């Protein structure tokens, strides 16, 4: 990591006539009387996207953004300002605004910088330039053509490719100084199929903190296309989903959206400091069945939710949230860790320099259990099997959460039978997790498509889980 400091600081600071040596004085101005902690977050981001639709590469866009976020904290108070311009003058103005929350008090102290040591989890190269423009266009066209011939019922194909390359420099009054260079790429295929006047959609994608060659390896891009088509064709045959409370089996991988909503958000440090979460004050208590061990792990190389260091310069880690059903701890950023008297867990994340950091998830998943997936399905007399989910949402205060199926089937007499239409499932997090009665041995992580929203900020995340069974949850279909 430390070898990134010089090149990243040159890229971010030099154009505005600044360098690393100028930062202690700027932090000193910011962390004046009455300020407990302060930090500077410099960021530049280049991103692009390419979209193929109707058989032609219709749109492409390129975006360049950069700026610096300036934050000062006094007790539970935070002052924040930012600027697109990374110059000494802009920084001083932002610092004046941010420190306006200061109360009278002791002069804040700025620790000497100690560069954070963390394992790099991804390459520093520009992922957008791993293949040239002609190759990107060629890839989209090739996948489109190969998708259209998969089935005569395909009516519409949309293929997209997107990439982001970020440079980040963090300097804080607690002595944190670190740089990170973050790649993020994504490929998506969406299809619409038609049969006898009925239409359905299917979609699949993937990606991670790597470059575009990832999609060429192992025929991944075409794999997404085949999966999108398969899902759409299944849904053409779907009957109405049942309405009512019944046993539900969730397939491995992306179904981990369940954990993200039912457990993850409720264990973010800010909600627990404020006592606004259904999990507040419950560390050490049983909050899930003893089969459940759930972690948040930012250290998985190349994963979409992974970070070498979080957006406050804390190295990421694998945090055990729930162990054998018992609540072990929360996910923390620096502010909430300080106020709760615990250590930060590397979960301080922000959408960009123009947003304040908060405790956020990275890759959240349940560890594998003992059951064979077939055995789990065979144990259900009448229920629902969810092969793939759409999005979810949670009210962390009441604990209520929802997720929607995008591919689901009835289970009848222990066998997967008729496909059913998309439906929303609703439950109460702490209750539903106690009803997890079987956990499979087939842990899988998602393909790298998750985006989490909180307080208007979006960040990339990962989820995962093995096949698991919930004895009873409400399924929102329209059928009997």
């Amino acid at each position: 990591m430390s070898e990134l400091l010089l090149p990243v600081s040159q890229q971010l600071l030099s154009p505005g006539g600044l360098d690393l040596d100028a930062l202690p004085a700027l932090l000193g101005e910011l962390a004046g009387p009455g300020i407990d902690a302060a930090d500077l977050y410099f960021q530049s981001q280049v991103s692009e996207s390419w979209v193929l639709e109707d058989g032609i590469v219709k749109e492409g866009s390129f975006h360049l953004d950069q700026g610096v976020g300036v934050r000062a904290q006094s007790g539970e108070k935070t002052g924040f300002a930012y600027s697109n311009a990374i110059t000494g003058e802009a920084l001083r103005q932002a610092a004046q605004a941010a420190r306006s929350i200061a109360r009278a008090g002791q002069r804040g102290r700025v620790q000497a910088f100690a560069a954070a040591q963390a394992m790099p989890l991804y390459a520093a190269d520009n992922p957008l330039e791993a293949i040239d423009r002609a190759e990107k266009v060629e890839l989209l066209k090739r996948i489109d053509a190969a998708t259209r011939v998969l089935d005569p019922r395909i009516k519409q194909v949309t293929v997209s490719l997107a990439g982001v390359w970020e440079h980040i420099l963090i300097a804080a009054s607690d002595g944190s100084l670190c740089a990170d260079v973050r790649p993020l790429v994504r490929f998506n295929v969406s299809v619409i199929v038609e049969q006898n006047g009925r239409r359905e959609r299917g979609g699949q994608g993937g990606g991670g903190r790597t470059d575009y060659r990832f999609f060429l390896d192992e025929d991944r891009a075409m794999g997404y296309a085949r999966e999108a088509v398969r899902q759409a064709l299944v849904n053409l045959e779907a009957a109405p989903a049942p309405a009512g409370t019944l046993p539900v089996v969730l397939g491995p991988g992306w179904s981990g959206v369940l954990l993200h909503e039912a457990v993850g958000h409720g264990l973010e440090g800010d909600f627990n400091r404020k006592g606004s979460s259904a999990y507040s004050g419950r560390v050490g208590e049983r909050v899930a069945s003893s089969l459940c061990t759930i972690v948040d792990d930012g250290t998985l190389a190349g994963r979409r939710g992974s970070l070498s260091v979080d957006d406050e310069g804390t190295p990421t880690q694998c945090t055990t949230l729930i162990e054998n059903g018992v609540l072990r701890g929360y996910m923390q950023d620096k502010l909430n860790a300080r106020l709760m008297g615990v250590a930060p867990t590397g979960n301080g994340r922000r959408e960009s320099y123009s947003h304040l950091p908060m405790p956020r998830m990275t890759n959240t998943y349940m560890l594998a259990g003992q059951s064979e997936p077939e055995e789990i399905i065979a144990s259900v007399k009448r229920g629902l099997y969810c092969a793939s989910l759409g999005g979810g949402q949670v009210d962390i205060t009441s604990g209520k959460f929802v997720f929607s199926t995008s591919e689901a089937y009835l289970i009848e007499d222990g066998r997967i039978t008729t496909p059913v239409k998309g439906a929303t499932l609703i439950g109460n997090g702490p209750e539903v997790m106690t009803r997890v009665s079987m956990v499979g041995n087939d842990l899988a992580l998602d393909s790298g498509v998750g985006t989490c929203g909180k307080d208007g900020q979006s960040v990339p995340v990962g989820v995962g889980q093995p096949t698991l069974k919930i004895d009873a949850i409400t399924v929102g279909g329209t059928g009997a």
Partner: protein
Amino acid sequence: MNPAEMVGPQALPELRAKVERILAESERQGATACEVSVSIEQGLSTTVRQGDVETVEFNRDQGFGITLYLGQRKGSASTSATGEAAIRETVAAALAIARHASEDDCAGLPDAVLMAGELPELDLFHPWAISPEQAIERALECEAAAFAADPRIRNADGTSLNSHQGCRVYGNSHGFIGGYASTRHSLSCVMIAEGEGLMQRDYWYDVNRRGEALADSQTIGRRAAERAARRLGARPVPTCEVPVLFSAELATGLFGHFIGAITGGNLYRHASFLEGALGEQLFPEWLSLDERPHIPRALGSAAFDADGLPTRAKHFVEHGRLASYALGTYSGRKLGMPSTANAGGVHNLFVSHGEEDQAALIRRMGRGLLLTELMGQGLNLVTGDYSRGAGGFWVENGEIQYPVQEVTIAGNLRDMFRQIVAVGNDLEHRSNVCTGSVLVERMTLAGS
């Protein structure tokens, strides 16, 4: 902050000059046509919680985006960087993309004769001279009223006062250039009630172009508190088929889904259940839905759309029939139809309504669910299938009985639109869609 530095109409000439510089640079680099949007924004956001300041945020954003054409090929680029080099490089980035894009018969600017001419004055700019200290004071007053409103209000999730102002100028190589300054101020309050060891959270807010026109802060606080407290003791109800009364603030979403389904992008992609439905009777005969883009100070008002075409008042639904799609230039060409000046969205929608207030509609419903909360994104626009997490109040004998949670409501939007029984006069004014509560004859409610 020094008022002289505030973002406002005085910045418009400079932004216009920038648009013209970017258009000239695009032409110099070889683009055959180009459109540019330049904006600056500034704002203050303050949040208080439990009687003390939590955050004070100062926002200041600026940037520009261009879409340019090489014949029928298109490329886009945007940046927050400033200066001549940023203009040159952003134009070059868009051109590099256009060179690799495919020929698209439908791509390109609207016909020059269609561009907006004289622009109506919409009175959207009302800066609010409120200091951070005053903003904090007002938010604290709001939260204090919430705490005082009900002894079961024991915690808070934050009360925020936000004040934003911005300027945007759009221009294209037909010579059209238009711009405006606008403001948006809001006060929102989220409170937590506790009872029998369980917590419930709810909120209330107001938003307005004029800060002085915002609802009284104590009223907002009390409303947030009442809404959180009345949810205590919520429980599921057994699975059933019943009428559902969408409270006005949620009914806006129903019409939002309708607009999504008649939006050109979804229609030409065959991704809407309303493809080909023009002229069809989708709603009851008495229902109409119209767009009024030129209302002074309204939140959705706009003089021109994202393509620079003049916006105009029109019906999307008349006598229950689908009277118009919502099209931009590109989607219109794809469908072989003229643009309806809805590139970028719709501007101030009004749903016709009857004379009953929400209480009267509850009486009319008799037995069913008064819906006050929706969760999740369970909507398939391709088929119209709708399934969402829901919460609200159980109604029996025309009266509210108890709060409901952990249920879902499901149906198909085509059926739901046709089965609208009544729209109330309890109009929601904070949204781009102005509607009262909407009574839907029958939906599947899944519960315990």
